[in-house]
């Protein structure tokens, strides 16, 4: 098997009428999705698309995921974009990728041209009216290799320019095996998907559908403000499995939701992307009898790389382990002397490691490095920048970052990206972004004449919501360390003056 498309074709044969994706407007069955992707793939081939990035900019929906598969069928790789990423992020993606084609819907066209897109914007609905070209699809499928790119997903970059992670088909297939084994997904599962479609996090649900025939219901984003209607939604759709970022789960547990309503059908609750507070996990486990899984993995290694199944209670302040690597993935720790150790930087090797960053040799070279334990032949692995340790039970624990990257509201953030955006605002001279871990609060300290409200309005237009500072401080000059660098620790204190 070369790509996950073969899984789609199999499922469409086995269970054509089973709902695959349900969103607020429609339900698409496995055969609907296969048929849509055939039409979109044929339409792309007809326009000459081949082995190139195709932007998919649509409302978060089953139709958007079907478009991903359509891009694969044309032997191209998809670049998912969503309005909530903000104009600055979308612009820098367009600058880096310069795609010739975009698949869009009504929600996207205005913003896309405002962001300077000059290629062909193809309306998904119109493309679906075009006929399938089986011969063209067969040719495209034959020329596709399992080492070809499957997608470009962008993550925050420290200089302001996001990095385009090049996901690979064979890594996606491998991930389909590992994640479904870990989640024990099957055809009776219905996933309630929280993840946006422009991050690799959404692969957990998509691959469970492709590999096991599970159904996926896209939970509307607005429900993540109202915990009781959110849980009622899960019950109405008989959701059995969740793979959510930590803040989405704690939204429910921290706001006394279980006093009013309890999820009735859940069997699997997986979380990741941030540290789960033991108190919140305890509230969940007291009210909902399910398997709880702590997942960990960087986008550069295709979704998640390791997991821990919760098998004991953790006191407040304890670290919940991230456990053990998936099958066919190895994780080890390297200390400051470049030697394998029980505490150090997390390195990951295996098929899961992606091809690097798109059109970005420098940053690729810094993170995708020769295995420091192998001097015999070339072997590239991913250096995460995360620190870990092996605990007394032999489980891996996540300790934090080596640099200024943080995890906030389920997203990976480089403080440099917020600073770079702030410096482009009129009236801002210098800016220092800070993160108060205790309060989980992102802040910005700046110099210049810009008013706080004007600055925030300007940032709101440029950045995704999760990159917006929750507190700002206007100062005469930024605090510096002895080496003359901006002193983030001192700047954090200025936020609360």
């Amino acid at each position: 098997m070369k790509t996950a498309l073969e899984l789609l074709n199999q499922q469409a044969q086995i269970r054509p009428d089973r709902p695959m994706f349900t969103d607020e407007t429609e339900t698409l069955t496995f055969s609907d999705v296969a048929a849509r992707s055939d039409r979109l793939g044929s339409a792309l081939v007809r326009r000459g698309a081949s082995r190139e990035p195709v932007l998919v900019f649509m409302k978060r929906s089953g139709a958007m995921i079907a478009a991903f598969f359509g891009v694969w069928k044309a032997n191209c790789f998809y670049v998912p974009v969503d309005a909530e990423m903000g104009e600055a992020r979308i612009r820098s993606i367009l600058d880096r990728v310069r795609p010739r084609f975009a698949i869009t819907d009504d929600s996207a066209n205005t913003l896309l041209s405002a962001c300077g897109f000059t290629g062909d914007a193809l309306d998904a609905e119109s493309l679906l009216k075009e006929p399938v070209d089986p011969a063209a699809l067969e040719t495209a499928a034959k020329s596709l290799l399992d080492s070809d790119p499957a997608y470009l997903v962008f993550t925050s970059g420290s200089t302001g320019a996001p990095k385009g992670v090049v996901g690979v088909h064979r890594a996606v297939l491998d991930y389909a095996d590992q994640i479904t084994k870990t989640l024990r997904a099957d055809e009776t599962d219905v996933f309630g998907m929280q993840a946006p479609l422009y991050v690799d996090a959404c692969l957990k649900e998509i691959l469970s559908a492709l590999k096991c025939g599970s159904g996926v219901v896209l939970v509307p984003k607005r429900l993540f403000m109202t915990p009781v209607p959110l849980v009622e939604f899960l019950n109405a759709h008989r959701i059995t499995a969740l793979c959510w970022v930590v803040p989405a789960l704690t939204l429910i547990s921290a706001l006394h939701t279980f006093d009013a309503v309890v999820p009735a059908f859940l069997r699997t609750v997986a979380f990741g992307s941030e540290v789960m507070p033991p108190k919140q996990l305890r509230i969940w486990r007291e009210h909902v009898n399910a398997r709880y899984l702590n997942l960990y993995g960087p986008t550069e290694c295709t979704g998640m790389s390791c997991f821990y199944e919760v098998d004991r209670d953790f006191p407040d302040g304890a670290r919940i382990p991230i456990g053990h690597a998936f099958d066919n993935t190895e994780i080890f720790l390297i200390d400051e002397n470049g030697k394998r150790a029980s505490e150090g930087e997390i390195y990951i090797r295996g098929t899961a490691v992606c091809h690097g960053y798109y059109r970005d040799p420098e940053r690729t070279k810094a993170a995708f490095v020769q295995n420091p334990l192998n001097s015999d032949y070339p072997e590239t692995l991913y250096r995460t920048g995360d620190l870990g340790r092996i605990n007394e039970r032999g489980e891996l624990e996540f300790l934090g970052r080596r640099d200024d990257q943080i995890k906030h509201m389920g997203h990976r953030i480089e403080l440099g990206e917020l600073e770079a955006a702030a410096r482009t605002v009129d009236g801002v001279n210098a800016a220092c972004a800070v993160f108060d871990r205790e309060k989980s609060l992102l802040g910005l300290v700046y110099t210049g004449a810009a008013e706080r409200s004007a600055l925030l309005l300007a940032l709101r237009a440029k950045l995704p919501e999760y990159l917006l500072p929750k507190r700002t401080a206007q100062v005469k000059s930024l605090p510096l360390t002895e080496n003359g660098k901006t002193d983030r620790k001192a700047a954090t204190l200025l936020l609360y003056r």
Partner: protein
Amino acid sequence: MEQLLDILRDLHPETDFETETRLVDGGILASFDIVMLITRIEEAFDVVIPAKDIVPEHFNSAKALYALITKIAEQDD
């Protein structure tokens, strides 16, 4: 009311909370803002906001939110 406005302005200084009536529906309050907001309200006003009351009609304006807090505080007394 002033105390509530301070909490809200602290989250989103760019918003005019005295007039805005679409805090939730207009997407001004972000997805996970709500936990921080409620935690701060519960601390400041010494109330517990029941989960069933966390719905858009109570959170779309500072006025509606203040009415909710007052109602809960009165029931507690």
